[in-house]
């Protein structure tokens, strides 16, 4: 659905993205992950034909984004970051206008606009001025706009930024549902979002692709795969020193919670040290109230890739 080859964009000589290569297949939900300024929005703007790349090529639904820009644009729905909208228009009016602009046949406009309003939960604000809507509703108007012409592909630039947790969950569910019929490329820096919605993830850092894989594989790949958490009363023992001696433990962090000590153990990838920890605790007669394995999150992947020194 999307094919990107050697895509490079420079602003006044400064590279924003360098030599990007990736493909997004039909029906995939691709997550685009990276810190601010990594080049996510630049890539999305290029893919939506808003601006050209400095070099390289890309195609959307088989149409070159530069040579056959109109056809490419007709096949994609794009929601820009911060969702700029005409504040002086009413919701239905705006969606009617956008539908007509995107060549939805005249007779089908009421039906399509009705559908997307239903889908995005805009029914109760349909007569309101867009300028009077809250951020969450504006986000939904942007999404409805991206969907109104039934595009094969959706490009969503930070669809959940600035929303409250409830709204984030709603938008996330909406995206998941949309993923059943549409190919989606979405960018975010909220990691759980990617973990929950995306079938594949691209991690981009300083304009380069650092990783491109399924969330599961990415988790498997990282060295510091999770850790173990232990809450115990260690009596006169130091705790940290003893735990560090266990094979496979890389690092131990200790926090106090009253009489209790909370240890966070970072372990070698693949190692399971829980049994050893339990044996140590019983040998030293520590009182244990919690011993648990912490799964590595994409957050760990992200930190490891974008700040390798601190990991």
């Amino acid at each position, binding site marked *: 659905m999307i094919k990107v080859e050697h895509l490079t964009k420079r602003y006044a000589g400064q590279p924003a993205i360098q030599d990007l290569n990736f493909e997004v297949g039909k029906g995939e939900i691709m997550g685009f992950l990276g810190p601010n300024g990594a080049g996510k929005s630049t890539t999305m703007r290029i893919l939506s034909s808003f601006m050209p790349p400095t070099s390289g090529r890309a195609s959307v639904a088989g149409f070159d984004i530069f040579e056959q820009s109109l056809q490419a*644009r007709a096949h994609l729905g794009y929601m820009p970051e911060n969702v700029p909208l005409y504040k002086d228009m009413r919701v239905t009016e705006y969606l009617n206008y956008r539908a007509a*602009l995107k060549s939805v046949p005249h007779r089908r406009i009421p039906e399509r606009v009705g559908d997307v309003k239903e889908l995005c939960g805009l029914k109760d604000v349909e007569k309101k001025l867009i300028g009077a809507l809250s951020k969450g509703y504006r986000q939904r108007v*942007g999404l409805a706009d991206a969907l109104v012409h039934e595009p094969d592909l959706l490009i969503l630039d930070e669809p959940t930024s600035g929303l409250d947790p409830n709204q984030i969950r709603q938008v996330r569910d909406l995206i998941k549902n949309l993923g059943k019929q549409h190919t989606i490329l979405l960018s975010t820096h909220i990691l759980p979002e990617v973990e929950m919605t995306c079938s594949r993830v691209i991690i981009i850092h300083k304009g380069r692709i650092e990783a491109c894989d399924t969330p599961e594989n990415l988790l498997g790949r990282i060295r510091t795969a999770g850790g173990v958490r232990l809450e115990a009363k260690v009596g006169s023992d130091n705790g940290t020193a003893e735990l560090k001696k266990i094979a496979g433990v890389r690092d131990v962090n200790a926090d106090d919670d009253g009489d209790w000590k909370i240890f966070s153990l970072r372990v070698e990838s693949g190692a399971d040290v829980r049994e050893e920890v339990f044996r140590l605790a019983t040998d030293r007669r520590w009182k244990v109230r919690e011993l648990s394995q912490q799964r590595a999150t994409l957050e760990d992947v992200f930190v490891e890739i974008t700040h390798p020194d601190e990991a």
Partner: protein
Amino acid sequence: MRKFLVLLNREVRSYFYSPIAYIVLVFFLIVSGFDFYIQISFMNQRPVAYSVQEAFFNSVFFWFAFVLIFPLITMRLFAEEFKLGTIEPLMTAPVRDWQVVLAKFFGALFFYIVLWIPTLLFFVIFQTTTHQAAANSTGAYLGAYLMLLLLGMFYLSVGCLASVLTKNQIIAAIISFCVITLLFFAGLAQYVVRDIDSTTRQLLGYFSAIEQMGTLSRGQLDTRPMVLYLSMTIVMLTLTYQVFQSRKWKL
């Protein structure tokens, strides 16, 4: 064509959503009404060799208001879209750049024409109350309003170009105001040339909007200003288009 009409519809509507439109309409109506009143009061005092209609279209008041409205009409056209970022959803929809440029231009032109409609009423009211003709001939009306249309098209296209250059509406307004004022008063430069028969003076005279209006509002349909302003409008719109699509240049 359908997309152009959709865009045009949105442009025209957006004028009437903003308070600026109503301020401009009221301001313009007051100034032009005052102009009309002054001209008639003046004519009441002494016999003159021109008609009410000619007096109306050739007064200082009239030109003052005239030059001022263009920046107000055109400043927001592109600058506002750049500022609010709405240019992004607009240009990622399957529309062509020239469709957007022309829709904005004709939207502005539509508003400009709406601005002039009430002035027709002045003449109707004058004729019904005084039972005298306000103009010497129908051609005089035609000429005057044709001149307004032509000059308006040119100045609006200048305003389009100013607006596409910046994302700041005030800067767009200042640029277009300066350029339009200079263009408008360039015709006065002919009086600097002493020699009445000199080619320079004649040439400058051709560009004088004031003189052209004098001719056309008498009902003499001179084709030279028509060609001049139509071609200049096309030049300005072409430049606007070029600047607008310059974001697609591979730099």
